[in-house]
């Protein structure tokens, strides 16, 4: 095996730059795509400013609640600055938390707690206003509870103790709701969505990387050189078999590297089932690429075939257009498309059995001499 690796190295290093580019493509291109993806998302967020004229925990909590909204980008500016930017249409809308905010809530007042500014171009003004108002209502409800509790308990508990207790209860309830939500509409939570995207993109680039690097089998299938294998230690079949193994091993290393990188960058949880799925996916594609490249004699015809297949792969994979509808109508797609067992972290990949069988059969059938 050492001699196989050495012989591979001699051929590999001649085109080390292009080879390495293709080898590391799944890691590099996935990170680039993900960055572009999140940047586009960031750019498409609506810019909003919240001006805090008061520095109280209650004002902060309102600000935090707004910052947690998914489709807005929040700025903390001075009132003057914010209004100038609103004028220039650099901001969609501006909300000012007036001074005395906390006091007014504690005393049960509801008027003029927040001032909202919008101009004719604003389209997020109303929904955000609604959200802020409902949050303020939660705060005033908490205030009411406090005074009721306070009266009943005779002033033993502080404001903070009561509100903390209330928000603890609320968090618990929210957690329950979230869990329920996840189970009922699986995969719709934002976190889950992103995860799926990442692995679909990685799967696609892995496909490109594996199939394009397997052109070695076509390049090394020169008739004159083939005749040498009749007198060498390895027959041509063994040569192809071992080099397919070397390439597969290389791609599996890229799997591990990808997993480590995505764990560091995107805090992906690396589980055994994920690693298993990645490795199975890689082996499936390596075998498929080995079988396909064994058929071709011209690299260019092979490249075009691979591009064509990669187009079909991309369309049916769900990366560009959502395919949930198509897949539930034709469940066979999730069986013949290698990316589905990958993103669903299935232990059983039906294709790997098929390709392994096919690989062994073609290996035995191919008589070069």
């Amino acid at each position: 095996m050492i001699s196989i690796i050495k012989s591979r190295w001699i051929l590999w290093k001649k085109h080390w730059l292009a080879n390495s580019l293709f080898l590391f493509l799944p890691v590099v291109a996935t990170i680039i795509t993900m960055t572009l993806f999140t940047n586009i998302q960031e750019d498409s967020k609506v810019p909003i400013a919240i001006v805090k004229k008061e520095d109280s925990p209650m004002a902060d909590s309102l600000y935090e609640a707004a910052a947690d909204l998914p489709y807005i980008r929040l700025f903390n500016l001075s009132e003057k600055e914010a209004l100038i930017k609103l004028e220039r249409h650099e901001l969609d809308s501006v909300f000012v938390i007036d001074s005395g905010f906390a006091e007014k809530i504690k005393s049960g007042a509801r008027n003029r707690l927040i001032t909202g500014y919008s101009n004719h171009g604003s389209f997020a003004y109303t929904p955000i206003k609604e959200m802020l108002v409902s949050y303020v209502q939660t705060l005033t409800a908490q205030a009411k509870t406090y005074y009721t509790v306070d009266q009943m308990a005779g002033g033993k508990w502080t404001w903070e103790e009561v509100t903390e207790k209330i928000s603890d209860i609320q968090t618990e309830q929210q957690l329950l709701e979230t869990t329920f939500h996840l189970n009922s509409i699986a995969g719709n939570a934002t976190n889950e969505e992103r995860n799926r995207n990442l692995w679909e993109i990685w799967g696609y680039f892995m496909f490109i990387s594996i199939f394009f690097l397997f052109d070695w089998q076509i390049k090394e299938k020169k008739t004159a050189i083939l005749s040498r294998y009749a007198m060498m230690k390895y027959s041509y079949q063994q040569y192809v078999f071992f080099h397919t193994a070397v390439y597969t091993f290389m791609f599996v290393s890229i799997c591990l590297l990808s997993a480590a990188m995505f764990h560091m960058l995107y805090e992906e949880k690396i589980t055994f089932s994920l690693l298993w799925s990645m490795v199975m996916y890689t082996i499936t594609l390596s075998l498929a690429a080995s079988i396909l490249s064994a058929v071709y004699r011209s690299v260019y015809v092979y490249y075009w075939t691979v591009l064509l297949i990669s187009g079909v792969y991309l369309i049916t994979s769900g990366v560009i257009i959502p395919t949930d509808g198509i897949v539930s109508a034709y469940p066979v797609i999730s069986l013949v498309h290698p990316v589905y067992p990958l993103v669903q972290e299935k232990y059983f990949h039906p294709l790997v059995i098929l390709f392994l069988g096919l690989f062994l059969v073609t290996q035995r059938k191919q008589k070069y001499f």
Partner: protein
Amino acid sequence: MMLIVEKLSKSYGKNMIFDNLSFNVHPGEIVGLVGENGAGKSTLLSILAMVQKADAGTITLNHQCYQTDKKELRRQIGFVPQDLAIWEQLSVKENMQFFAQLSWVKKDMAELKELCLQMQLEKWDEPVKSLSGGMKRKLNIAISLIHDPHLLLLDEPTAGIDLKSRTEIGRYLKQLASQGKMIIYTSHDMDELRSLCDRVLCIGKDPFYKNIFHESPIPFLAIPD
């Protein structure tokens, strides 16, 4: 130790190339294989090199039979194909290294270089692309010799190369023969055949070749019917 070919036949479909061909080759002997274009010289050599199979007949080398002892025989045969079987993108050194890795015999860099030098192939680090035709031919031979084969089959090793390289290759083949190797090689050059070969094997249907070699001082090895 000896190569024995008995009643060998080969045809491509209806096109019969040779039939009932029998001959022997002894150690230390250089046998020239001659015949017109398309006579079947390359076909015969590739059968002897186990690249192709014969339709009928038996071949034994060193008492080992081609049908049953394939694995053992692979080590003992060196074959230089008519077309260059080398990597154009690699250097001479890398070509030697590559094929040495896949070879039976482990040879270190010094030994590989020595093998090239014996054939006056000095351009060790040069990429094959930029070598002359003669140099490429020499490399093509050197690669086939890495595993020290007993039987060396060369298909037009000297075609299209200059007189000097041709002489150098010839001298090297003589040296190998003197070490006890069996050599069969094809050529279309009469002078070369005269100076190198101990015997000549003439195949093909054209009587022209048979007539020439009947008159030549080189003894005949076999004449198919």
